[in-house]
């Protein structure tokens, strides 16, 4: 009987370990994670798979024992006896203290190794300053002096982000890169990433930063070195919506005001039904063309709107605070984009 | 009967014999949590002292005045001890004398603190002049509040003694107050060291 128990236990542990090994190495868990778009993604996912292997084993062990006990040891009708008076078992207790201890130490060591690989210093990275503020990300390339609201990165070149915040804490996160770092006012935090996949990925703010937190979504464009250089050469203007420098150099396409509204995330703070804006941080913009015309004596709607975008503190609407709207739109937008946005506002 | 009655369990079983009165144990626990409260404020003070030093404002601190004040507060701890000894000897008049002296010394300390605060405000060191000002006034202010509560407590204990309370067999109230008062004193020694001496 006792030998049979030991045999069963050995077989069960073997089966569990094999299942764990298969989960960690063979089973495709990529459906649980976004695309792998950086070197860090591959490393984190490997560690994640390993942890899933351990987790599945522990889960099956505990749930299996629980369900087995529930079925096997349920009281039969009419049985008023009690179970055996067993108070403990030193061997068993030592095993279930030591084995988990060893497992978590192994996990710690593995995690530490992955961490050092992720954070390994790199030579001559592309430096990008990441600035978070309510509720927009902006990016500065110190080498070229370019400032942009979208993040462009050349593929396979390490990037060192220098992350800061202007108002409250934000958190810079690209799920496809698997890394995030808080943007904290008063300090600059560094994060190094090497993107490996061409494509466009969302940048999501991961730290609650106020009413427009959910809408604080930016975009990272991972592109070839040639595309990146061209983008920098064009002053960091977005080739698609901006209409300034398309790939074929055609600059004649007029920017579309509604796209500008969407691209720069105006809707995070401003309500505008047509542009999908639902924010309430700033004044609502539905019907703005009529309001703008009569807001300030002696100032036409167009002038008023232009001033409100380029110098938001010039005419602050009653009930809203001065200094809330970022002062960076003249830097981020081309003059054409600002004009297009004003024009679009006039139709609303 | 009960299980595992081995020798090493025996002294655990003696747990009831901690020899502590309810009130005294409760007070110790309360003091423990107060230590953590001041620990939080002290951590804030030290954090800003290290990371955002204010040498000019620190130099304005009057170490001599506060040193004398510290001596006064330490003396008041001594008077509480003497008062308790009187109570244990059934000497109510002596108890009253020393409780009164304790309250008086506490009040003198508070007066010194107010004088110090006013002087600093006149020099331009305020709650909102710098993180040093913020953390200095918050930390010493909360300590001052504890002294104020202690003075009130001393007077309440005194009032009970005047009405004929406390005796050789019943002086737990004096002891509890003493515990609190010593705690306030010890916190001050820590504060004096980290704020004025280093």
């Amino acid at each position: 009987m006792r030998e049979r128990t030991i045999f069963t236990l050995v077989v069960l542990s073997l089966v569990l370990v094999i299942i764990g090994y298969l989960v960690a190495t063979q089973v495709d868990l990529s459906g649980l994670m976004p695309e792998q778009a950086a070197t860090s993604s591959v490393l984190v996912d490997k560690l994640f798979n390993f942890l899933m292997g351990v987790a599945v084993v522990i889960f099956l062990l505990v749930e299996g024992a629980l369900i087995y006990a529930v079925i096997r040891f349920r009281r039969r009708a009419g049985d008023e006896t009690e179970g055996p008076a067993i108070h403990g078992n030193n061997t068993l207790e030592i095993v279930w203290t030591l084995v988990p201890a060893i497992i978590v130490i192994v996990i710690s060591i593995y995690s530490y190794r992955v961490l050092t690989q992720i954070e390994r210093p790199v030579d001559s990275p592309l430096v990008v300053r990441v600035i978070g503020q309510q509720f927009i990300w902006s990016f500065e390339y110190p080498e070229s002096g370019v400032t942009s609201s979208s993040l462009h990165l050349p593929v396979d070149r390490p990037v060192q982000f220098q992350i800061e915040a202007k108002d409250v804490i934000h958190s810079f996160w690209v799920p496809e890169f698997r890394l995030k770092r808080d943007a904290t006012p008063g300090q600059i935090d560094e994060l190094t990433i090497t993107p490996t996949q061409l494509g466009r990925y969302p940048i999501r703010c991961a730290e609650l930063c106020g009413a427009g937190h959910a809408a604080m979504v930016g975009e990272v464009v991972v592109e070839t070195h040639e595309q990146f250089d061209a983008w920098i050469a064009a002053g960091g203007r977005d080739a698609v919506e901006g209409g300034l420098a398309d790939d074929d150099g055609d600059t004649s396409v007029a920017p579309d005001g509604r796209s500008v509204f969407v691209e720069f995330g105006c809707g995070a703070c401003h309500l505008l039904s047509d542009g999908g804006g639902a924010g309430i941080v700033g004044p609502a913009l539905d019907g703005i063309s009529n309001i703008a015309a009569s807001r300030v004596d002696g100032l036409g709607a167009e002038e008023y709107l232009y001033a409100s975008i380029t110098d938001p503190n010039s005419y602050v609407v009653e009930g809203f605070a001065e200094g809330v709207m970022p002062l960076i739109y003249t830097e981020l937008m081309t003059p054409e984009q600002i004009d297009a946005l004003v024009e679009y506002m006039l139709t609303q | 009967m009960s299980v595992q009655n081995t020798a090493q369990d025996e002294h655990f079983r003696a747990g009831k014999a901690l020899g502590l009165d309810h009130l005294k144990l409760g007070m110790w626990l309360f003091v423990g949590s107060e230590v953590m409260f001041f620990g939080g404020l002290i951590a804030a003070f030290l954090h800003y002292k290290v990371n955002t030093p204010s040498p000019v404002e620190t130099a304005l601190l009057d170490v001599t005045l506060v040193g004398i004040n510290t001596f006064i507060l330490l003396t008041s701890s001594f008077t509480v001890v003497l008062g308790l000894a009187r109570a244990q000897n059934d000497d109510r008049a002596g108890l009253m004398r020393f409780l009164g002296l304790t309250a008086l010394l506490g009040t003198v300390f508070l007066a010194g603190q107010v004088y110090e605060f006013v002087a600093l405000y006149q020099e331009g060191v305020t709650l909102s002049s710098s993180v040093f000002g913020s953390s200095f006034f918050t930390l010493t202010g909360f300590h001052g509040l504890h002294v104020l509560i202690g003075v009130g407590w001393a007077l309440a204990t005194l009032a009970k003694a005047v009405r004929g309370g406390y005796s050789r067999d019943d002086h737990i109230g004096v002891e509890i107050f003493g515990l609190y008062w010593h705690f306030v004193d010890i916190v001050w020694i820590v504060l004096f060291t980290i704020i004025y001496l280093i």
Partner: protein
Amino acid sequence: MSVETPTASKPIEWRRYFRWNTDHKVIGIQYLVTTFFFFMVGGALAMLIRTELAQPGQDLLNGVEYNRFLTNHGSVMIFLWIIPVLAGLGNYLIPLMIGARDMAFPNLNALSFWLIPPAGVLMIASFFVGAAESGWTAYVPLSVTAPMGQTVWAVSVVLLGFSSIFGAINFVTTVLTMRAEGMGFWDLPLFVWGMLATALMVLLATPVLTAGLVLIAMDRLAGTLFFAVAAGGNPIFWQNVFWFYSHPAVYIMILPAMGVISEVFPVFSRKPIFGYKAIAISSMAISVLGLTVWAHHMFTSGMNPALRIPFMITSMIIAVPTGIKIFSWLATMWEGKLRFNTPMLFALGFISLFLIGGITGIFLASIPVDLHVHDTYFVVAHLHFVLFGGSVSAVYAALYYWFPKITGRQYDERLGATHFWLNFLGTNLSYLPLFVAGLLGMPRRVADYAPEFAIYNQLATLGAFLLGISTLPFLYNVIISWIKGPKAGDNPWEALTLEWQTSSPPPEHNFETAPVLSRWPYDFGEKVSPADASEASASAGD
């Protein structure tokens, strides 16, 4: 110790539940009922949040309202429900379990309770002056510039902190000095061990949060500069102070729950608890270790990189004492005679759900994985499995288990089982999909999300409403059974802890004569010699 027929047959004076009363049993019921009310308030906020999230886009709540609801959902659930409801259980049970007549400081005990209603009213009333909207974490500088309600919120949390601290002083003093004759530390029921470990954490950690809230309040009201970045203020300092309390708070919310589970398993397995000392010691180990792990909430905050490693290791090691408990409960069931009354169902549910919360905790402790999932719905799912699947399941187990003791009447098992299954399914449906949403890239605390996360959120919203519905059979069961349930008898579960050795409900002074411990609380099993069992089971058996 002999058990006599209750003298407490005089009509229950219901008004005493609305007054200052120093009887720990009255205070315990005041705690349980008041906190359950706040549980429903927090639940209503949760369902509003889930309704907003039922589909992408912002329909029901705007960004500000959403943030206010999520902040107060978290604050109400943590500070006004789980922490105080467990204190309420401790209040009702500790004196009975250790054979004391009352708590050591009855008036302080009443004060602990009476701080809760005003604090709760303040927190809810803060909606009228612009409620707190910076999350229950109140990260600075967002919380410094938030509207007036943030100050009200801070005052409310400080009051609740005082309530916790006074309660903890009472628990420790009572357990250390008022045990029945013959009751050593190794005879303490494991629920009492859990409360003792919790009380020590409360005493050490809660005042630090109070100090931190003082700093925020000073910044908001007195113009101090602690968190004013331009003047050298430091937002990270708040995070350290906050998590120094709030991570231990997780153990404050789970250790008493584990204590409940340790009471339920032996009784319904008819076996001694397996590894009594290991369970007791692991509670104390968790309470000590729990004070050393707080910075694992700050791996992405740009803290000193080298310091992350020790915090990762301490966080991982907490899995060991936690594992000891789970394995010990499983071993307690082994070869037992399991009875599936509602408390046992919830205890089994506790293991299943808490297990998921615990395992995902390992993922979060591993720094590289945390860098991805921190501040995402993965964390939301993890903490709800721990606190809802874990703590709340245990609270339900406790309410069913001690219902006959508190009311003298028996609840309806069928309604109890219905409640359990709705709750169990609802919990899994609500929170399992959120793990995936978080892994795939959905941040937490968002009022809107990308369309690709819709399916997970729809499932979670369905689950949330299922959870809302699941409270109905519970409430119906409790109210109806309390009024006209069948008489339960003094010891319907044939349990051995002291609270079952007096009448149900217990008389005003708990025991007619000073109880003497005659039997170890988990002395179940077939090898007990008849002489030892005589007294306790003679009174329990009829």
